[in-house]
């Protein structure tokens, strides 16, 4: 019983979102989301590692002993993270320096190990890679929204310093949405702001889910009234 691609996509992006529902990988999520460019950089790096590690784990799933599977997975993830680290050093060195310890820490991101053990070790390579992509996008979306919200609240501008990631082309992508009089709500950039905004995002997702559920229930026809049954004193009355 393997999931369809549609289900995998819905799971990764919304229903089982790593950031909002599984609450995995909170350390990099909260640590690097103080600006959009940092968040986007880490999101792309994590997504790349996630896709590749899921594919690799899926490839070797037949020949890995159960007892040594976790060390094997971590080795794969660590190797891929090193690749990403070297790539970032080569192409986006300034961003690499800003993100600092959080790039090597991708190795220990629970989302990646969780998907490797929970999905890729049981599914084919195409499905696994697709799951990695969807989980990566889901995680990245939460990260970028969190980063953008904190950047906007904290400094009043959006997309500052995007040239760190996209080169000189993005020099003037910066938008100052709240005007030049805005003083900046420093708390949003500080660590408490990450927890507060993430909490509000989770609350928002729960509200959307509840509304959708209520709407689905309202659309269904009311169930037939259950005819009376004899009362049983033991067991469960169905």
């Amino acid at each position, binding site marked *: 019983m393997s999931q369809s691609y549609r289900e995998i996509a819905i799971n990764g992006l919304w229903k089982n979102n790593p950031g909002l529902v599984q609450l995995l990988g909170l350390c990099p999520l909260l640590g690097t989301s103080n600006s959009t460019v940092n968040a986007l950089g880490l999101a792309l790096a994590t997504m790349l590692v996630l896709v590749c590690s899921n594919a690799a784990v899926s490839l070797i799933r037949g020949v890995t002993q159960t007892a040594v599977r976790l060390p094997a997975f971590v080795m794969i993830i660590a190797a891929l993270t090193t690749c990403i680290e070297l790539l970032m050093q080569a192409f986006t060195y300034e961003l690499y320096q800003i993100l600092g310890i959080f790039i090597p820490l991708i190795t220990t991101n629970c989302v990646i190990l969780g998907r490797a053990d929970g999905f890729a070790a049981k599914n084919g390579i195409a499905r696994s890679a697709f799951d990695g992509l969807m989980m990566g996008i889901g995680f990245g979306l939460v990260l970028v929204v969190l980063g953008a919200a904190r950047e906007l609240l904290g400094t009043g501008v959006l997309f500052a310093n995007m040239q760190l990631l996209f080169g000189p082309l993005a020099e003037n992508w910066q938008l100052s949405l709240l005007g030049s009089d805005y*003083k900046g*709500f*420093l*708390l949003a950039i*500080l660590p408490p702001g990450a927890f*507060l905004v993430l909490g509000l995002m989770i609350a928002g997702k729960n509200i959307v889910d509840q509304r959708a559920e209520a709407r689905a229930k309202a659309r269904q026809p009311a169930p037939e009234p259950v005819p009376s049954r004899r009362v049983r004193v033991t067991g469960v009355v169905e």
Partner: protein
Amino acid sequence: MALPRITSPHATGRNRTQQVMQLVLLATLPGVLVLTWLYGFGTLINLCWAIAVALGCEAAVLRLRQRPIGFFLRDYSAVLTAVLLALALPPYSPWWLTLTATGFAIVFGKQLFGGLGQNPFNPAMLGYVVALISFPVEMTSWPAPRGFEAANPTLGLLDGLQRILGLTDNLPDAWTQATALDALKVNKSLTIAELWESNPSFGSVGGYGSEAVNLAFLAGGLFLLYKRVFTWHAPAGMLAALALMSLLFWNGAGSDSNGSPLFHLLTGATMLGAFFIVTDPVSGATSVLGRLLFGAGVGVLAYVIRAWGGYPDGVAFAVLLMNLAAPTIDYYTRPRTYGHRKPERGFKLGE
């Protein structure tokens, strides 16, 4: 004869929370008056605006949470939070600062945890700290007290209102000035005597304004103590710990002085904290010994932050930190129920 068929307790009276809150509000009156006399109408405007924001936020969240709005608004707890917060904010702080601090205190500090009685932190101090770390410049610009302004008397009602709404910028440079705690923190070269001589507005002990405000809050606190709104343990613990710490680390009146015990007792937010914040029955410890320890912890931490921390005053941070510790304190200081023996610890031979 019709006997009332209800069980004990037969205590009568209206909403008791309401009465307590009203008494505490009444006790802040000396402080409000002194603040208004010293700094002009800024405090009063802040008070009104903070109360309006607090009631608005409280009503909005209660509506979202589908709770009875009128019942909870009438217990005056939101008003008290707003008043304590507004008294801690600098007079003439801009309107959005008061809005942010009060809104945060009510929504995030109180209602998101479940409303009155459920908040782990003191809402007023939470709002104050949020404002302090978010807007340090506005939060540390205290106006000079009456009689010490540079060629510019204390602002009138209209000027003050314009200042708070951000409509005027034409204020003299010397309108705001460092408080005594600020000056002591940044002072590197002057002895205490020289420092006080160069700043006539530092008065005799803790700053001309601070002394009077602290004494007024002390009077209000003693009134509450007399009315038995709270017991003496938490305030006494805090003041004793603060005095003890400042006595232990009092290194004379040289340029590296940490200030005398009397200075620390009569400056900054000491008395407001001791009698109106530390005595919060919700976020503090509850047992008798626990309250003493809670107060003492606040006193020690406040002194540590004042003397060696990055902020001039540390009462708000100290209260929040001790709020975190309050459940643990309560756990270890549970009073023994009458008739029960102390639990025996360790192993006994023969078991």
